[in-house]
């Protein structure tokens, strides 16, 4: 990540943002080209023209469809057609035989679910990961430190599919066997409230339909927890490293020399300094969770974008994958950018 110090005129920020945006365009282009080549160029699943034809078409009709959409052209020509098409908003069709729907529609139908999952996953990650890191740093090299490090690392080392299933096993199957209240194991309830933000829980709250909100929430707990368990280790270690570094600083010695209790030293003096990098990283976390939710969505049959992406990979569905990678490239690069700028805002030492 580019380092920058902003001093003096605010022109420098805009310059920096514009540079990053240009980089974004380049990345988008390159990523799309790469995915296009990989998926279209090596058709593995179903044929790329499958969504455009029906099973009743004759070979000649199929042939005409193929020629009309340019599927018989060389790859780079196809790529340019694709580029031209997306400027007109046409992202191609996705899906299986004759059930093709516009790829961008399918994507944005499922996207809110992934976003919702990531939001709650991030909240859980922060809620558990930050205290773990703090404990590790304060009681460095003593038992609580070792315990929380094992927990954090265990999360990091857990196979994502395995953990999801274990959660289902315990909280759904065994709980119901033992007569305990249990959590639903998969899926999400149908979207029955009017779409405003697109996010199920928030729309439910806005519509005042608390039953729906609760239902959605119950379905959300296990996948969100599964997702967060795997990433909280990373956050905890960053918090720990940061806090340890801060506790070594001179101003902490000064604070202690004033006779402040250790608790006050940590909460008032140390934490604010230490959490700055951690907080800004939360943005990147969120972006990463968005992309990494694929297997979790699969395990829990969560109707998000990751599940669709999985399907698309197996079907060789290039249109959907292109939308997917396009959106994620934007998300990740913007998240990085936002985090960098935020960092400059939060730290009072960096002036404009």
């Amino acid at each position, binding site marked *: 990540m580019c380092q920058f110090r902003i001093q003096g005129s605010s022109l420098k920020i805009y310059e920096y943002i514009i540079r990053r945006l240009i980089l974004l365009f380049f990345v988008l282009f390159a990523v799309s080209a790469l995915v296009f080549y990989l998926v279209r160029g090596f058709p593995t699943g179903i044929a790329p023209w499958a969504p455009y034809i029906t099973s009743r078409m004759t070979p000649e009709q199929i042939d005409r469809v193929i020629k009309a959409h340019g599927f018989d052209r060389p790859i780079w020509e196809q790529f340019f057609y694709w580029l031209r098409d997306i400027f007109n908003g046409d992202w191609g069709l996705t899906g299986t035989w004759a059930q093709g729907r516009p790829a961008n529609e399918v994507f944005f139908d499922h996207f809110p679910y992934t976003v919702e999952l990531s939001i709650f996953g991030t909240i859980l990650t922060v809620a558990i990961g930050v205290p773990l890191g703090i404990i590790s740093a304060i009681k460095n090299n003593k038992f609580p430190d070792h315990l929380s490090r094992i927990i954090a690392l265990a999360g990091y080392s857990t196979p994502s599919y395995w953990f999801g299933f274990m959660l289902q096993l315990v909280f759904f199957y065994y709980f119901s066997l033992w007569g305990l209240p249990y959590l639903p194991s998969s899926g999400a309830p149908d979207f029955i409230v009017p779409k405003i933000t697109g996010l199920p829980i928030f729309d439910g709250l806005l519509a005042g339909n608390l039953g729906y909100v609760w239902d959605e929430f119950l379905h959300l707990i296990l996948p969100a927890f599964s997702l967060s368990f795997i990433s909280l280790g990373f956050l905890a270690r960053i918090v720990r490293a940061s806090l340890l570094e801060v506790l070594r600083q*001179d*101003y902490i010695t000064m604070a202690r*020399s004033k006779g*402040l209790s250790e608790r006050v030293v940590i909460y*008032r003096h140390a934490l604010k*300094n230490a959490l700055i990098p951690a907080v800004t990283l939360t943005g990147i976390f969120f972006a990463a969770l968005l992309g990494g939710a694929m297997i979790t969505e699969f395990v829990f049959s969560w109707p998000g974008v990751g599940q669709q992406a999985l399907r698309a990979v197996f079907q060789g569905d290039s249109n959907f994958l292109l939308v997917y990678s396009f959106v994620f490239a934007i998300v990740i690069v913007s998240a990085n950018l936002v985090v960098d700028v935020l960092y400059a805002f939060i730290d009072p*030492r960096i002036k404009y």
Partner: protein
Amino acid sequence: MAEKRAESQPVLEIRNLKVNFSTYKGIVKALNGVDLKLYSREVLALVGESGCGKSVTAQTLIGLLPENASILEGEMILNGKNLTKKSKEEMRMLRAQAIAIVFQDPMTFLNPVLTIETQLEEVFMLQKNLLREAVAIQKAEGDVKFADLIKAKSAGSSQTDKGASKKETKKVAKKLSIDLLRMVKLPDPKRILKQYPFELSGGMRQRAMIAMAFARRPSLFIADEITTALDVTIQAQILHLLKGLRDRIDASTLMITHDLSVAAEVADRIAVMYGGNIVETALTRALFRKPFHPYTQMLLRAIPNILNPVERLESIPGTVPEMINPPPGCRFHPRCPHAMEICKGERPKLLEVEKKHEVACYLY
């Protein structure tokens, strides 16, 4: 006039203090039996090269030694209380109310993300007694100044009736902060309170730290190389400030420095430290006029003299002893031109050779 300040009973007495650090490379014997006396309302300068143990002495006094340090032997007695026997919690209370320390580099020793107000007021908020007194004075006289509190302390009065409310204490703390900042000659204290450390200059930050120290009305005030990180003009200002303040604040000061000229500026007495021991203590003038210990003599000869320019500056041969395997007996003997056989044996004790002038050397 400085001589008159020294009274018979020392405020602080350190006896045979030995402190070790256990490190990967071995045990560092940092303090090798330090003997020191600090009298009421005097300024004692602790001078020595880097690594001789001055800062370790300060750390031991305030009770903030790192984990791998241990006090082997010795005592530190402040106002009759033995600091070496105190628990961590008790030391913490002392740091809040009786012992204050100002450090060397005001940039790194102030928290960059907290305002001066926060960092100064928290010192006040720790002292319930002071706050109650202040509120009482406020109620009685309609206004309170920090000077009042100093008078209150030396008068030994405790006008503590019932406790004060949180709002009142906060208001009073803020008032006192502004007053204190004014005392350390900071312009526009109200504005400074709202600022962050990076917005102040080096000299201003150092004054703020001094304010934070004096806010405790300390019996013992330790200044650990406070001028080293400042350039010469600011240095002069700070020293001037300290000299002005010491008449108003009833504290005894331990001034740690490696710069003899700084010591000459402010100190009533000087103690010279080498290799974890005090080798000589004397009143300032006496030390410069008639140094007894060979180390002190060579130290003074090494200072360029504007009245007596020489071609080559004298330096002390050899290097500072490494503390894991220090030379036995008197730690200076490998570099001492007057070294005798006896110097390699037991360490010489501090003996009074003239009035108020002590030396630790077998020459005497």
